[in-house]
């Protein structure tokens, strides 16, 4: 047993431990050193602590089997930027598609508010090949019903009514002819007629009297042209609508996983 007074003189484990590590102040270290010179007990404890410390220090530093450097994905850098970019569907794509669709609808409705001359003119320039072909067939004596060289859809319709205006190059016949057009034209061209189609064709006669002086082939021309342009317009409208739906779905699909990776 260590007497109380003698016990008090001993150095604490904490100080002995800190002495090993050189963490005592100079006066503290001097006190410990003085004590150790005459106290075997504290010396034994010191050696015990020191041996533990040196054994731990002798444990080999292990090397990891891999490096921990961060990939851009781990750092959260590229994932945020890359994921949406890979699918490349801008968020405004559906809006653009919808705008185009609405614009095409507006073009569709344009003749009702004013002259169709502009439209017809545009159509002529765009579908000049078609126009030339129709002119040829009309100018060739209009017998070309079977040989109608007009390409694509409106060909049968042209063949059906082209001869009449060629024979009577006046406004009246043209007018009487035009209402017929919805029946023959739509019936032949596009059996599953869209609702606006007849309306548009019924509207045709209103502007046609304006270029009354023109040759009948021009009228026939306009008819066939508007047929072509209407069906093409229809295709463009459907295309724009499809583009809207597809881009909307694409944006929804690509944005949500992007948000998931970012978080």
């Amino acid at each position: 047993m260590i007497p109380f007074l003698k016990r008090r003189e001993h150095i604490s484990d904490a100080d002995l431990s800190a002495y090993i590590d050189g963490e005592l102040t100079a006066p503290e270290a001097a006190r410990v050193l003085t004590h150790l010179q005459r106290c075997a007990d504290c010396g034994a404890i010191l050696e015990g602590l020191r041996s533990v410390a040196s054994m731990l220090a002798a444990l080999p530093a292990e090397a990891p089997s891999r490096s921990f450097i961060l990939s851009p994905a781990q750092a959260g850098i590229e994932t945020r930027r890359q994921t949406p970019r890979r699918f490349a569907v801008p968020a405004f794509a559906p809006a653009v598609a919808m705008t185009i669709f609405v614009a095409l609808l507006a073009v569709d409705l344009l003749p009702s508010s004013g002259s169709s001359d502009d439209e017809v003119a545009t159509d002529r320039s765009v579908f000049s090949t078609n126009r030339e072909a129709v002119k040829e067939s009309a100018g060739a004596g209009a017998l070309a019903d079977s040989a109608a060289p007009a390409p694509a859809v409106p060909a049968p319709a042209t063949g059906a009514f082209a001869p009449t205006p060629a024979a009577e190059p006046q406004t009246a016949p043209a007018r009487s002819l035009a209402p017929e057009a919805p029946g023959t034209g739509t019936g032949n061209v596009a059996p599953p007629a869209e609702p606006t189609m007849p309306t548009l064709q019924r509207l045709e006669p209103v502007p046609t009297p304006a270029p009354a002086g023109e040759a009948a082939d021009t009228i026939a021309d306009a008819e066939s042209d508007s047929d072509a342009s209407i069906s093409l317009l229809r295709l463009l409208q459907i295309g724009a609508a499809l583009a809207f739906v597809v881009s909307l779905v694409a944006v929804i699909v690509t944005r949500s996983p992007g948000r998931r990776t970012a978080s």
Partner: protein
Amino acid sequence: MMANDDARLSRARQGDLAAFNDLVLEFQGLVFNLCLRMLGGRQAAEDAAQETFIAAWRNLGSLRGEAFRPWLLRIAANHCRDELRRRGRRPSSSLDLALEEGVPEPFDPAPAPETSALDSELRRHITRALEELPEEQRLAIVLCDIEGLDYTEIAAVMKTSLGTVKSRIARGRARLRALLLSEAELLPARFRHEDRR
């Protein structure tokens, strides 16, 4: 912390991942060994080390004025604590397996000079005894005796006072010694002192 580290650190804080990865390469051994001694298993230690660096990268902004190394080691220690808590206090003994299998060292093919200082049997006993220590004592001891940090830096890692660090290290060493003495026949002769108390 060297001036070089400061430069890399400030570049990393501006989002320079390459600069940060330089720091990773410098400190990954330290972080991995801390995790290894705290968790016991290589796989768990590698996972914790990787998590540490990811968390460090994400939280570089919260490092204000503090030295990088103790801050990084504190993140690692916290990950180890979380992992120990998650698996319910007792660390796995997978380190034993790892030691038996031999340690692959792809980044340092030359064997460490200390490898021969302790035979593998003794090393196993030391690491097992280390796992028996209370968490905070083990952390203090690992930081001091294995990682070689001074008390001031250990206090910074553990966010505690110098006095607490001092007593944790002393109690940890004394406890470890008692644990090792229970298998005294394995210990070097110089270690077999009888305890005074």
